[in-house]
């Protein structure tokens, strides 16, 4: 199949060339100039390709670094928050103990005594009358 395509008549190929091609050909450059032009184009393409590859690699490295830095920052932030949480828990524990100390009956009794309060000598207890209880 391929052999047949390459073997097509030259006239037929020429007939398919555009007008622009004709214009270029009408101002045809010397052979050595045309050869140099092709070389420049190839070098340019190579340069652009290499630059693009380097740029992509650079961007990827930057992305990786940004990701790593982000994770590290979040890690440090998480540690800071954990430390803050631990400190708040510790403060809470201390406050609970202080509350227990202040609620201690012995302390309240001592404070009442200091304020001049006295114990009630007799507490009347009212029992429901059996008759009233049955109503």
């Amino acid at each position, binding site marked *: 199949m391929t052999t047949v395509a390459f073997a097509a008549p030259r006239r037929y190929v020429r007939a398919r060339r555009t007008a622009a091609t004709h214009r270029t050909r009408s101002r045809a450059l010397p052979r050595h100039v045309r050869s140099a032009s092709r070389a420049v184009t190839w070098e340019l393409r190579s340069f652009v390709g290499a630059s693009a590859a380097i740029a992509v690699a650079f961007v990827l490295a930057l992305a990786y670094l940004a990701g790593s830095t982000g994770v590290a920052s979040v890690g440090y932030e998480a540690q800071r928050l954990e430390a803050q949480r631990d400190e708040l828990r510790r403060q809470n524990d201390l406050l609970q103990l202080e509350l*227990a100390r202040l609620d201690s009956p*012995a302390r309240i009794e001592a404070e009442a005594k200091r304020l001049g309060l006295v114990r009630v000598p007799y507490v009347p207890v009212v029992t429901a009358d059996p008759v009233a209880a049955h109503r």
Partner: protein
Amino acid sequence: MAPVSSARLRTLFALFAVLSIVLSARVAYWQTVARPGLLERANGQVRSDEVLHARRGTIFDRSGAILAASVDLRSLYAIPARIRDKQKVADDLGILLGRAAGPIYDRLTSGADWVFIQRRLPEATANAIADLHVDGLGFEEEPKRLYPNGDLAAHLLGFVSDDGAGQDGVEGKYDGILRGTDGKLVAERDPADREIALGLRESVAPRNGADLTLTVDLAIQTSAERELRAAVQRESAVGGSIVVLDPRDGAVRAMASYPTFDPGAVAAAKPEALRDRVVGWAYEPGSVMKAITMAAGLETGVVTPNTTYNDVGYADIGGRRLSNALGRAWGPSTMTQVIEHSANAGAVFVAKKLGEQRLYDALVRFGIGRPTGVDLAGEIGGDVRPLAQWYPVDLGTAAFGQGLTATPLQLATVYAAIANGGTLYRPYVVASWRDADGEHRTAPAAVRRVVSSQTASTLRDMLVSSVDKGLAHGAFLSGFSVAGKTGTAQIPSPDGRYVDDQYISSFAGFVPADDPYMVVVVVLDRPQSRLFGTTTAMSVFRGVAEDTLRYALIQPDRKR
């Protein structure tokens, strides 16, 4: 260009070749033989192995009030090389820590790279030191066991040593479940000692200790300690103890010994203050034991409350004469009057009718001579000699509580059995504990039936009579029926005799007698009022009972 000598080229090539081989060999050495060492050195610079301390469980009273809890307190350390003006820093710290500056300065100039200045600082002091912003001073957190009620229930709670081990009381007995299991964290850290987020991280989480809820009631405990302290101080007694039980299931509502100590500062306590006089101290209890003798007599049917004998003030047994207190003769007396008058001769009368075996069996059945099994560290069981070692007189002395020893807690369980209708319960202190698996409740444990409910009821009435009409009238409470018995015991001396004019006074009772809410045993060791020490013991009972009945909203069962 002149051609390069091939000899030079070969030399150069050979040189490079040798160098390459040497370098390769060196690299191979570092990568293989020296690799573990290098790896370890590298890891050592960034890797930290940290112990994650388990939190010791909190101890609550039965209403949820904190009795003991662990918190991390800050310990102050110094890196002396980084402190410029050491004298000024020592002076400032001395003021804030309430210590002399000299020893602090000595530490700062000791040449050590790192020194502790003071451990486990109060929070306010640590904050004040932090505000100084001194370069070279830092804090490290260390766990500390704190007891917000000070010395309250010190013997019952026990304490925790500096290395975190529970000692005595609940802390000692339940150390295994209070302590928890430490965890571990292996992580890589940066030079600022921060964990590297993407670095190595292996951790085993700590398993915190279980929280305990006790049967003890802080309000009753406070009342018991207040009354006991006042009585011991008033009587200039050597010491004293009190225990309050719920007779329905053996739950301990309060337990205290005096002198006492602050469990948060055990190092400052006197050795005598550390002695637990409720579970770790046995004494010859004296007449409070007559309740057992009488229970055995009633149970076996050898006596009834109305059985009468003629009290001449003494009883002869085993060739010895055992007298009543003050040698008093009560004349014809019923068994109820024996309890009312606390007549030793009457107790010997019952014992003779029982015989050695049955009295001994009764003592053993009531648990005298062996530990009650309470869940506290350091319990002893008292001493009842085997029957084979009894002298004939021992039948008489044992009948009124001499020649054998018991702990106040044992006496409380005896009276609890009489109060609840005849069932001996194992006393217990921990009502429940909560760990990661949930809540575990302690089931009350009935040890055995010691007397029938009929015997218990009869004996209860006799003990009520003792308070209403007898020597125990000092325990009388307006509006409530009280059952109880006094005890004045002689103290054995090392030479086998009894100490002259020194006694241990006690009172054991329960209230309300018909539907008992609490059993109280009070013991005073060598009160100054000697034979009348029981009056003080009864006043302690009365004070605690009045407070508790009011607090627990117990209805009076008598008209006032």
